[in-house]
């Protein structure tokens, strides 16, 4: 099967800034693919390379097997949901959604009917006559989605589409996007800096760091088997044990990741002892920082379990397999 999007050693340099630096990736057709990373890590530039708003300074980009280095955005069967939605303020919702058909020369009747269908798909029936300025953030987001889908793209690109929404709405839209992707079977490529969002929605996650891909894998691989210290730290803020510490607990002498929720507090079989320096209440549990010889460890105590006092000495217990050995760096 040909990949929906393929990057072969792709680079995009802006002067001396290497926004994207030798990226290889392959996105299988029909997957929900997340590009995760902090700002400036190159994830958005990668998305713009797919849509054609940026041209690579090196390497090759293939969309469904076709080299599209010389293909302008308007001839790529790829559509984008913009971070700021980029709805046309002078057109009503129906004309916004139908825009892709309008520029193709589809007659008014057909394109308006189709626009209504797509508005129904995103649950905005009857909103066609309104102007984008009269809609809420969540509604604008849906209009942007409908507009991007009207040309039946083979790949849908989403640039932090939920970033401007409040938490409650964001969670609802996450579920909806996921359901929509499964229903339509289109490849979705999604840029986000929110690791929770990437893990909960995507089939595959690429973690970006400084213009390069630090790791590609399924959400559980990324979370449970981070390959580098950066991934471990960025995705779910893990404890990173130094090589020296890891070897003390029977692992190879390389840095190891140890998730806060894998550590229990208890004296029996304690691998380490330390003093509690901070407690942070998080609702579903409490994150405790324990100062241990050679550093500090975060421990997540779920609700209902007894909490130690600040300054108390505690023992820390974890299973040997909870420690995940990483590469150097």
């Amino acid at each position, binding site marked *: 099967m040909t990949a929906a999007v393929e990057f072969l050693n792709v680079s995009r340099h802006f002067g001396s800034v290497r926004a994207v630096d030798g990226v290889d990736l392959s996105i299988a057709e029909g997957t929900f693919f997340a590009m995760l990373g902090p700002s400036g890590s190159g994830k958005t530039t990668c998305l713009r390379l797919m849509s054609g708003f940026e041209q690579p300074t090196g390497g090759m980009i293939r969309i469904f097997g076709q080299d599209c280095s010389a293909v*302008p955005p*308007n001839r790529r069967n790829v559509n984008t949901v913009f971070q*700021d939605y*980029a709805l046309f*303020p*002078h057109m009503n919702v129906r004309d916004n959604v139908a825009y*892709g058909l309008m*520029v193709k020369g589809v007659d008014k009747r057909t394109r308006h009917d189709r626009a209504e269908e797509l508005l129904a798909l995103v649950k905005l029936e009857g909103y066609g006559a309104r102007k984008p300025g009269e809609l809420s953030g969540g509604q604008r987001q849906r209009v942007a989605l409908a507009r991007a889908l009207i040309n039946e793209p083979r790949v849908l690109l989403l640039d932090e589409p939920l970033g401007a929404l409040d938490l409650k709405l964001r969670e609802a839209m996450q579920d909806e996007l996921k359901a929509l992707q499964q229903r339509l079977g289109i490849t979705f490529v999604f840029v986000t800096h929110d690791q929770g969002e990437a893990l909960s929605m995507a089939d595959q996650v690429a973690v970006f760091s400084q213009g390069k891909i630090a790791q590609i894998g399924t959400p559980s691989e990324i979370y449970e088997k981070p390959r580098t210290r950066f991934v471990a730290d960025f995705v779910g803020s893990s404890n990173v044990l130094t090589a020296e510490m890891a070897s003390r607990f029977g692992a190879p002498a390389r840095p190891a990741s140890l998730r806060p929720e894998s550590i229990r507090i208890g004296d029996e079989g304690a691998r380490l002892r330390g003093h509690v320096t901070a407690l942070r209440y998080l609702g579903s549990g409490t994150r405790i920082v324990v100062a241990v010889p050679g550093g500090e460890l975060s421990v997540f105590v779920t609700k209902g379990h007894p909490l130690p006092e600040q300054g108390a000495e505690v023992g820390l217990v974890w299973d040997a397999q909870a420690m995940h050995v990483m590469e150097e760096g």
Partner: protein
Amino acid sequence: MSLTAEPSRIAQPARAILPTRGLGDRISALFWRHPNVLLITLLALPLVWLVVVYLGSLAALLLQSFYSIDEFSGQIRREFTLSTYGELLQPANLDIIIRTVAMSAAVTLGAVVIAFPIAYFAARYAKGHWKALFYLGVMLPLWSSYLVKVYAWKLILAREGIITWATDGIGASAVLNGILALPVIGGNSLSTSYIGTWLVFLYVWLPYMILPMQAALERVPQSMLEASADLGASCWQTLRTVIFPLALPGIIAGSIFTFSLTMGDYIIPQIVGSSRRFIGQAVYQLQGTAGNIPLAAAFAVVPIVIMLIYLTIARRKGAFDAL
């Protein structure tokens, strides 16, 4: 930071409310308690100016236009009449109006065509030094005297001027003569033709088109152009369906300047062009040598009415929807 500094601060505990420091603080407090007082203070002077000087003189003008002149005594008859407006419809006067409106429209159209690429460059591509250069380039002509510029143009356009010399030099004098041989807009030389008048108007009012247009284009987010291309639009389609409608308020604003400034001008057509009169010249002569203030006022009302009609149509067409 040493701890020894602490006791002195504790010895004199900070007050919750600070003492006033004089008149400035008391005025600030007054404005804070009564925001309307601030508003009135800010607006009083400009409002007096606007209402009394500006709208007042406009009302006086309007009033004058409803008076008429006694044909025998030459005195102004201060009685309401529409006969002065009737005079505007006489063929000679109507010609002046049509000539002026046509010239204003041509100047506006020319200004839109020339200003758009410049404004687009400034809004989308110019950064840092280039932006400064743009503003300098657009504003620089405004710093020199209007009369000097117009006379300079007369020299450029004259039969003995640089344009004739240059076209001769490259062997294109046939083209220039062909243009001058055109009916109505042609003439003896560029400096005595409508083309010359149009060129000078265009030059003098162009900054007033570029600046609002650039401001409007600058407000069109890059993502909107990208969205249009992303959905399959060609450059031309994006220009027509996204950029132009969104820049329209700026274009309208600019066209108000170029249109009304051309309609009111009486110096350029006097220096450069055929000797046929424009509204400005008619007003100048009627209120001066002819002493026919009512007709001058009626002439002066024409541009105002035309602008009001123009703005109404523009608003109906949705030119201000994107504001």
